[in-house]
């Protein structure tokens, strides 16, 4: 069967879901960040797939992807830095315990 954008979209949807599941269920902050990283990649994959299948003549998706990747990288860097800082303060990275900003 020929490869269609649908495949990629489906695949990235599944990846996204897995990432979301990870983010929601895992207790360890780093796991959560990893899951978020997965969701990010699913998104960017989508972009490139879209570029590849429909909009290959324009540069925008690629550029968009570049920017997305940069942001993802920056976000994860900061996320981890935060986790480290929180860890120093809380002595644990268990997401459920980080409830200081409670309402």
């Amino acid at each position, binding site marked *: 069967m020929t490869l269609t954008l*649908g495949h990629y979209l489906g695949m990235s949807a599944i990846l996204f879901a897995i990432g979301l599941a990870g983010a929601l269920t895992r207790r360890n902050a780093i796991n959560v960040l990893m899951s978020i990283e997965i969701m990010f990649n699913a998104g960017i994959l989508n972009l*490139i797939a879209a570029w590849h299948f429909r909009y290959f003549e324009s540069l925008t998706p690629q550029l968009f992807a570049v920017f997305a990747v940069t942001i993802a990288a920056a976000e994860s860097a900061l996320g981890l830095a935060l986790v480290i800082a929180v860890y120093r303060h809380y002595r644990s990275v268990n997401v459920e315990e980080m409830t200081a900003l409670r309402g």
Partner: protein
Amino acid sequence: MTTAFWIITIVTLLGALLAVTLRNLVHCVLSLILFFLGIAGHYFLLRADFFGTVQILIYIGAVAVLILFAIMLTRNVTGEEGPREILGMKWWSGAVIAALVAGVLLHAVRRDATAAVASSAPKPLSVADLGRALVGDWVVPFEGMAVLLTAALIGAVVIALEEVQRRR
């Protein structure tokens, strides 16, 4: 072409799943790296080799290492985590929601006509015109990215550094 797609998809999905479900944190990271490789593979498959390399360079090179560092710094050297620590309190609700989202997205994909487009083997994009575009009409977001990255750099340093000063 499609078989490569499926192999790589399986690898990616496996990586993602393992990353989410493994108990040992470091194993999760490694499976994550596998996942990243899978994604890079997809990029190469989609003829976006620049992105492939970028994916490898950034994710595997930087992010994965970063996560490993994070793990090391959070004293969880062994990476061991009991079942109790792995899953959150109401983990099942998370899984259900994820499934729901997946269902909705897949449904959307299925309904979307454009999704049926087949691959059209576009010529690989040259990095040069990407570069020219970046500093051409996309210079503002580019500079924005520069600022974002510097800010992130400084932020990360400050957050991490702060602890050192206080301890002394």
